[in-house]
Structure formats: C-alpha cells, structure tokens
C-alpha cells in the first residue's frame, strides 16, 4: 500500500515545485474532460507514461503496470455502457446488444478516464503528499483541514505498520486458514487497531501538550526548484492535446 508513496519520495521530479506538477495534472485533466475526442485521452495517457519514465525515472514496469491495471478496471466499468439493454421486442423479455453506436458511446468515457487516471497516477507517483499539503498552505486552504490531513497522513502509515504486524502474527498462527477463522481474525485485528489508534491519539496528545501545543502543527517547508524543462513539456503536452482535439 505504501509503494506509491515510496516512489513519490525517490523520483527525479521530487524537488520540483509541487505547484508545477499540480498545474500540469490539472491542465491535462481539464483537457481530457473538455474534449469529446477519444484520442485526446489516449494521448494524455501515453504522455503521462512517457513523462513518468523519462523525466521522473520511474520504472516502466511499475508505472505502466499501474496504468494498465486501471485500464482493465475501466474496461469492466464501461461494459455497462457498451452493452445496451432493452425490454421486449423479441422472443426474450430482455435483450442485450452491443452495437457500433454503443461501442462508440463507451469509447469516450474510457479514453477520458484512462487519460485522467494516468494523470492522477503521474501526480501520485511524483509528488509526496506532504508537498501537496505544503502547497495547500501556500494557496490558503484552512489550517484546520491541513492539520487534520497531516495527522491522517502520518497515522495512515503508523497504523498500517501496526496492522501488518498483527496480521502476520495471526497468519503464522493459522489465523486465516478458513473462512470462519479469517472473519474472526479480521474482526480482532480491526478491534485492536481501533484501540491502538485511540491510545496513540491520547499519547500524542500528552506529548504535544508537554511541548506547548497551542492548536497548529508547524513544520519547516521544503525548498523547491522550478524546472524549466517541465514547463516546456507542460506546454508541449497541452499543445499536442489541443491540436488533436481541433484537428482530428
């Protein structure tokens, strides 16, 4: 579960200003949503894979695999659009049909969502959440929300580790050997996790109080750099998507 986060901290675009990466992502997503040509979405997905592999130096297998998985998932979801259903009109009470029109209708959301999902994956794989929260602070998101998000981010990994330890302890004791036991073990883990979370929150409260916690958590901001190549690439991506949209 933490592998995307690990790449986010170690890729080549890690210290590029998060605003730049968010701007790229939002522009591409907006273009994918606005255009009605399936090719735009597919091109956006291709761009994102290329950028992730060439600029961020992510392994193709990892990033491409993530996009492929989403594509398969998406195929399952657009099935509901590609297959048309209507009552009566033949021997059967319900008729299912796949027509050229329904396939064309399914193409658009498929391409759009593939482009969008690949762009989200690009953002997720290149930008750690702390950078995004820092960006939120700069653009004036309320501090209450940012503190809440910071806490959730921190505790997700603390609790995840605790969960993994408990589950592997149960597995070594055959805790998941059959369905009944698995259900029982899962409930036990969830229970302990809730108690663990509660007790941790109490301990952290004590620790923060002893350091004079007055309501907000302050951290040092990271120094970012502006990447001119990424600005140029952003322009190129938007331009090419726009061209495909107008010309084809």
């Amino acid at each position, binding site marked *: *579960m*933490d592998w*995307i986060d690990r790449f986010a901290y170690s890729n080549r675009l890690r210290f590029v200003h998060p605003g730049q990466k968010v701007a790229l992502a939002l522009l591409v997503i907006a273009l*994918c*949503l606005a255009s009605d040509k399936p090719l735009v979405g597919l091109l956006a997905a291709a761009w994102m894979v290329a950028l992730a592999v060439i600029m961020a130096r992510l392994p193709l297998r990892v990033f491409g695999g993530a996009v*492929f*998985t*989403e594509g*398969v*998932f*998406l*195929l*399952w*979801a657009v099935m509901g*659009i590609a*297959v048309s*259903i209507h009552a009566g009109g033949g021997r059967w009470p319900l008729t299912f049909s*796949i027509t*050229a029109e*329904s396939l064309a209708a399914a193409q658009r*959301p498929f391409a759009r*969502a593939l482009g*969008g*999902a690949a762009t989200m*994956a690009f953002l*997720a794989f290149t930008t750690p*959440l702390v950078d*995004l929260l820092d960006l939120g602070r700069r653009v004036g998101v309320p501090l*209450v*929300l940012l*503190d*809440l*998000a910071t*806490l*959730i*981010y*921190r*505790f*997700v990994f603390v*609790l*995840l580790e605790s*969960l993994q330890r408990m*589950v592997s302890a149960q597995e070594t004791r055959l805790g*998941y050997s059959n369905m009944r036991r698995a*259900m029982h073990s*899962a*409930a*036990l*883990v*969830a*229970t302990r*996790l*809730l*108690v663990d*979370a*509660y007790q941790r*929150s109490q301990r*952290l409260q004590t620790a*923060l109080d002893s350091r004079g916690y007055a*309501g907000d958590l302050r951290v040092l901001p990271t120094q970012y750099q502006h990447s001119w190549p990424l600005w140029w690439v952003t322009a190129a991506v938007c331009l090419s998507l726009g061209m495909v949209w107008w010309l084809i």
Partner: protein
Amino acid sequence: MSKKAIGSRVFMLVTALLLLGGRAAWASVNSAPQAMHIMEGFLPPLWAAIWFAVALPFWAIGFRQIGRLVREKPESRLLLGLVGAFAFVLSALKIPSVTGSSSHPTGVGLGAIIFGPFMMSVVGAIVLLFQALLLAHGGLTTLGANTVSMAIVGPLVAYGIWRGLRGRLSEGWVVFLAAALADLTTYVVTSVQLALAYPDPASGFMGAFAKFAAIFAVTQIPLAISEGILTVLIFRALRNTAPVEMRALGLEGA
C-alpha cells in the same frame, strides 16, 4: 462492413480482451479494494460539478462543526485524525468475500457514530483524496461524487440505523444492519450516479441502473454481508476487550 461482421469482430475483440485481462483483472480486483470508487475522468464535467454541489452543504456544516469542536476540545483533533487514518487503513484489511477486501462503512460508519455524519463527510473526503493520491483510486473531479456515495450517504444510513433502531432490536442486529445497509446504499448510489451520467439509449436511466448495479453486484453484495458480520464481531470484541475505550469513544451508552 455489415452489421453481422461488426458484431463478430466485436465479439472476438471482447473475448480476446477478457482472456488477456482476466488474470490482470482478478489481480487488480484483489489489490484494489475500492471497487466502488468512480475513477478520475469517468464522469462528464456536468455531473462531476453536480455531485460537488450536492456534497458542498455537508462539507460546509462539517467544517464549521470541526472548527467548533477543535476550539472547545483541542484533543479531539488528534482523535479525528486517527479515526480518518483508521478508516483508510481498514480498507487494507482482508476479509473473506468475493474480492477479499473490506471497504468503507466499518471505518467511516464508526466515525459517523463517534463524531456525527457531518464531520465525517469532511474526514471522509480527506480520506478519499488520500486514496486518490496514495493508491490512485478515485480522482479529483470525481471527489464530489465519491464523497456523496461513500462519505455522506453510507455514513448517514449507518448513523440513522444506529440511532433509530438501537434499543428496539438486539445490538448484534442493529450493528449488522447498519454496516451492511450502509455498504449496500453506497453501492446503489454509485450505480445511480453512473446511470444518470450514462443512461441507456434504449431503456434510459432504469436500464442503465440495472446494468451498473448488475456489474457491481458480483462483488458488492457478498461484501456487504461480510462487512456486516465483521462489524458485529468488532463490536463484540470491543465490548469484551476494550470497554474503557469504547465508553471514552461514546460507542456505548451514548
């Protein structure tokens, strides 16, 4: 190309894709517990905006409530964060079902019982945003729609059943119904959202709803039952092993 030829080609294409994607699909279903997340870009802009508008009042009320709570009881800020993280992490827990993973209701539903549904809509939205950015499930433009189905309607149902039925049925049943029905309504709401955005050309909204509901029924109905049983077991275990914490969280005697 004649219609028949198109049909047979499409059939071949679909079969090939299914054979090719079958393994990957199974693997992805197993590694992607949030099958009900609407992906980035899947909704047309208009519907994405509409669902943001639906979520907005809940967020506004929840935000004000959080502000007040944090001013009055600063220590609850940490607890809110922990409950959010708990909801996120629970989705990594494997439970016996078709897809083998838990989903939201247990975590978010518990949060709704502790903090009320409005605050949980804000925490739930943060959790959904994190899922989009840490797991690549869901997205930014679909955040509104996903919040409505998973962080508003589901918790509201859980909260309503918990409040309305407690004392009238045995606690086991109340907890089971709250969790299972919250899961089911989440699934129904998502199907409605998809059907509204993509109505069937021949049979309209109802046909589209039937299609999307059927696609997700395979994983979601067994999941709802599993989720219900799991939550009952969690409540029982909490009562037996952590009565002090349970009282402190307001899960008992509230």
